[in-house]
């Protein structure tokens, strides 16, 4: 689905969301209940580098400074972090982490943050945006990827066909919205046949600052161990250790 359509569907009452020449999305939309929601994001599958992070983080901090609990929507269509020597030289890790931290700050300060993945999303840029929100939803057709299978095949030295076969039996490594749903990363996949503004309201209602993605992953059988390992660490650290059977 194209960004313009998505914005129309999300904000039938109007919005002032713009995409810059550098594919950086900023603005605000009018929710179904009349209240404003801040909107940031990356469009057109652009890569996110040090320059792109700054206006996004600035917008988040502006919302937090204003107070009042305005929620924030993060629209994501990015091919990943910018692969450039000079951006790395200037500390790209700090920039991407800064954006994530600003979103996490907003959440801690009572602003609900929603990630909406409608295009590509990968690796470092994924961590800085969609995965730093309270609740991440996907539109059918979105393509979240940690690494594409051909690259994975090169790095792991496993034949592409082997990876494709394996991907049929486990959601733990291959790209795909369904896999991320099963892993607990994506809370739900929206229904394009239903009004987007209603789904946004529902998503906001279900969002909270508590991170239960590992529990979701366990329930959906995508991550059988993560939630209980984390719990076991807490139990042992606080002196209430029990038994954790290995899978």
């Amino acid at each position, binding site marked *: 689905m194209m960004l313009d359509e998505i914005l129309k569907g999300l904000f039938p009452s109007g919005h002032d969301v713009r995409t810059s020449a550098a594919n950086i999305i900023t603005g605000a939309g009018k929710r179904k209940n009349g209240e404003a929601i801040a909107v940031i994001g990356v469009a057109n599958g652009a890569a996110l580098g040090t320059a792109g992070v700054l206006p996004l983080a600035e917008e988040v901090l502006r919302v937090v400074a204003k107070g009042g609990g305005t929620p924030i929507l993060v629209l994501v269509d990015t091919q990943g972090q910018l692969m450039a020597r000079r951006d790395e*030289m200037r500390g790209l890790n700090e920039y991407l982490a800064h954006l994530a931290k600003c979103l996490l*700050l907003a959440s801690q300060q009572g602003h609900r943050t929603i990630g909406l993945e409608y295009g590509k999303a990968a690796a470092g840029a994924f961590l800085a945006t969609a995965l730093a929100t309270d609740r991440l939803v996907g539109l059918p057709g979105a393509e979240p990827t*940690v690494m594409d299978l051909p690259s994975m095949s090169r790095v792991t030295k496993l034949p592409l066909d082997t990876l494709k076969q394996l991907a049929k039996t486990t959601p733990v*490594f291959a790209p795909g919205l369904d896999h991320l749903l099963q892993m607990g*990363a994506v809370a739900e996949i929206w229904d394009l046949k239903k009004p987007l503004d209603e789904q946004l309201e529902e998503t906001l209602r279900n969002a909270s600052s508590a991170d239960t993605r590992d529990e979701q992953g366990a329930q959906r059988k*995508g991550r059988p*161990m*993560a939630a209980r*390992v984390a719990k076991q660490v*807490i139990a042992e650290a606080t002196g209430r250790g029990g038994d954790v059977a290995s899978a």
Partner: protein
Amino acid sequence: MMEDAATSSKASWFQATARQRVAGLLDPHSFTEFLGPSARVQSPHLHLFDLPSAFDDGVVIGRGTLDGKPVLVAAQEGQFMGGTFAEVSGAKMVGLLRAARDHKDLPQTVLLLMDSGGVRLQEANAGELAVAELMRAIVEARCAGVAVIALIGGRAGAFGGAGLTTATCSRVAVSEQGRIAVSGPEVIETNKGVEEFDAEDKALVWSTDGGKNRRLIGGADTFAEDSMEGFRAAAKALMAKVPAFDLKTMQAEQERLATRQKRFGACDDAVSMWRILGIKEPEAIRDMDSKEFAALANNIKEVNHDAR
């Protein structure tokens, strides 16, 4: 004894295993491990790829003391699957941070001995999620007053998710050998060509991702010697005072990063950045010894900040 030599105060941090680093960093006999190897909490996925697993999935966690002060510790084993974040290895770190966040009777300082190439590809989705959950847990712990200190100096460096995790911590220590980045040089070369980044050019790699550059541009708060005592001293110094995680800090970081982008946006190499910083002989940085370098970095005002 073999173990003693590898954990003695002058022993190399870079060469050491995760367990050796924990032993060398903390006060002797002070370490209690959580979910140790005999618990056999291993990866449920590696066997699908005919890969061996490790009893601790490559992460050692527990508590101990550093100079008498109670700390929680997580150490990544860079030699096992590149120290990568995966379902179990990631969950161990997430659990540790959540424990510190929620329990005031636990040590309120967490030392993260990072040594990771990023996310374990064989468990890519689980690993990526673990990083996201860890970054969130670190922020929440910091909001609860926990000091989270990243120590970077291992063979795998801190790449990808590990690079982002590092920059989420309250304070960062790095040695000359430590590398911090998002995409590794080889990945950039494969994707963008050798003109963009010649991964074989060691000096270029080092000046881009290496500890000295990170320290000089403010990506690390202290420079450590490559030894157990070097990192001990660094951790001790950083633990003493950490910035609060709040709007003020994030606004200060926004300004710091915007200034850096403006100042160095046109630089083609690290030496040009260092020259702009006011370093008289930037070419001499490379061969400068640790002590002299640390002193030089400590004296550059804008490099030493609370904006993290």
